[in-house]
């Protein structure tokens, strides 16, 4: 039976899985789709999660992206930056962020394209990526899976640490380095290949392994059998619609394509 769902909704449902087994921790999704994914996880597979309004409060219920109509969300705790840093360092957080580049080690970049001293393009700066990457679990989202994002070699400036032995004394990686999922417009990837190599975990409906590999600047691990990314259920779609009354999810991926590209 074919259900009508968008690629954004497929991604939200797939990305929500990142937090399923995390227990009672802070879930942070940066950008509309990761944020909606954390929100969906909180309302379905992991109600213990704490999420914020994106500013400085933990709220009892997830806060929709975009303009807020209706009553103020119920506040359940304080999440100012000092407290967020303390949470990061405690390890009780799992963030899904949207870097500009990622490499085969899972190292990511949001600082510069080109040379650091005189960049071709200056972006944000490393923000909290370095600290996040060595203190708590991290997942990544890419709206556009291309060889420009999934680069050959290393990213232009390593902002978040990855499984690159050359960057650690005696190759010993921090015990707290814990990279989980990479969710893109083509597939879900993880770090469960040999020595944490990036592996295709599931393919979005209508996408082949070759398409993913052709859009990746390094070799991906190909399991003998690759499942299809699970389609969102009717219940998940209803919750997503409720979580996103402003339909911000329709604006993230160009043309808001359907989730099932076998049909297209």
């Amino acid at each position: 039976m074919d259900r009508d769902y968008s690629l954004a909704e497929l991604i939200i449902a797939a990305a929500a899985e990142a937090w399923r087994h995390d227990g009672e921790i802070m879930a942070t999704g940066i950008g509309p789709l990761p944020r909606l994914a954390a929100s969906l996880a909180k309302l379905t597979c992991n109600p213990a999660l704490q999420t914020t309004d994106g500013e400085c409060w933990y709220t009892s219920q997830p806060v929709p992206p975009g303009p807020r109509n209706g009553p103020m969300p119920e506040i359940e705790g304080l999440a100012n930056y000092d407290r967020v840093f303390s949470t990061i360092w405690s390890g009780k957080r799992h963030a899904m962020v949207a870097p500009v580049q990622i490499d085969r080690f899972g190292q990511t970049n949001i600082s510069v394209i080109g040379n650091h001293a005189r960049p071709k393009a200056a972006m944000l700066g490393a923000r909290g990526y370095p600290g996040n990457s060595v203190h708590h679990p991290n997942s990544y989202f890419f709206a556009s899976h291309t060889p420009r994002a999934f680069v050959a070699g290393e990213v232009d400036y390593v902002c978040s640490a990855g499984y690159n032995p050359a960057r650690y004394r005696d190759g010993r990686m921090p015990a707290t380095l814990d990279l989980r999922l990479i969710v893109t417009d083509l597939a879900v990837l993880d770090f469960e290949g040999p020595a944490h190599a990036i592996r295709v975990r599931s393919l979005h409906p209508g996408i082949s392994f070759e398409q993913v590999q052709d859009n990746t600047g390094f070799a991906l691990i190909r399991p003998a059998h690759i499942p299809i990314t699970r389609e969102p259920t009717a219940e998940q779609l209803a919750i997503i619609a409720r979580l996103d009354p402003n339909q911000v999810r329709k604006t993230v991926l160009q043309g808001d394509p359907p989730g099932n590209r076998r049909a297209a």
Partner: protein
Amino acid sequence: MSLDDVVAQLADGMTIGIGGWATRRKPMALIRAIARSPLRDLTIVSYGGPDVGMLAASGKLRKLIFAFVSLDQYPLEPHFRAARQAGLEVLELDEGLLHWGLRAAAMKLPFLPTRIGIGTDIVKQPVFETIVSPFDDREELIAMPALKLDVALLHVHRSDERGNVLTLSPDPFFDELMARAAQRVFVTAERIVSTAELDMSRNARFNLIERTMITGVVEARFGAHPTSAAPEYHLDLAHLKTYVDSATSTQSWAAYRERFIETTPENYLAAVGGSERIATLPAPVY
């Protein structure tokens, strides 16, 4: 004292920490006063927003110590980008490393140990060293050097004449550490009131730092504009757009400077739509 009195206390080549975070509670009236002064070669330490961009575009920076520069709703700060792409010297940090460097300076320590930066390019910058734990774990850690400031500039909601201050917003950011890391601290306040009016026993949690740390206070109504000073007023997104657009050409920046920087605080307030407009700006969504 006045804004210009504060600027007169600053000198070329100083290292200056600026409080607030991105588009929130930046001491912008003071930043504009510095932008129109002859000061130069400043090293700025900031959780950066338009403070960094405006000083960069005004040619005041020799070096920037930062973890990000962003206008939140406009993620990429165009004046910062232009300066960075033209080769502005930087020390790029993680947000928590910046905190840690200020904390070390506040404690008069040469450094504080941390895992932040391990495995990244951040710690390949020459200021960083590693240190091995002297305990049984023998873990190798990063030594984050103290970020000592000559001056910190902060914006608060209330102060009395002696520098007893209240920061009423729910997020104080790292203003306290900026102050403790600095030799001298100048504060702009929305209102200077009597000590009694601070109602300190009730508001104690909003008193981030004791007056012995505060060198001078200036009253500056809407002194954070176009950034926010919640809960009293919010980010001016329309003005932020004007500011972003000012980066499109030399002429547009000159026009922005002329209209909003080379002017008095009173005329600035009129140029941005008056106090009533700012006081009623809607809360932004993050």
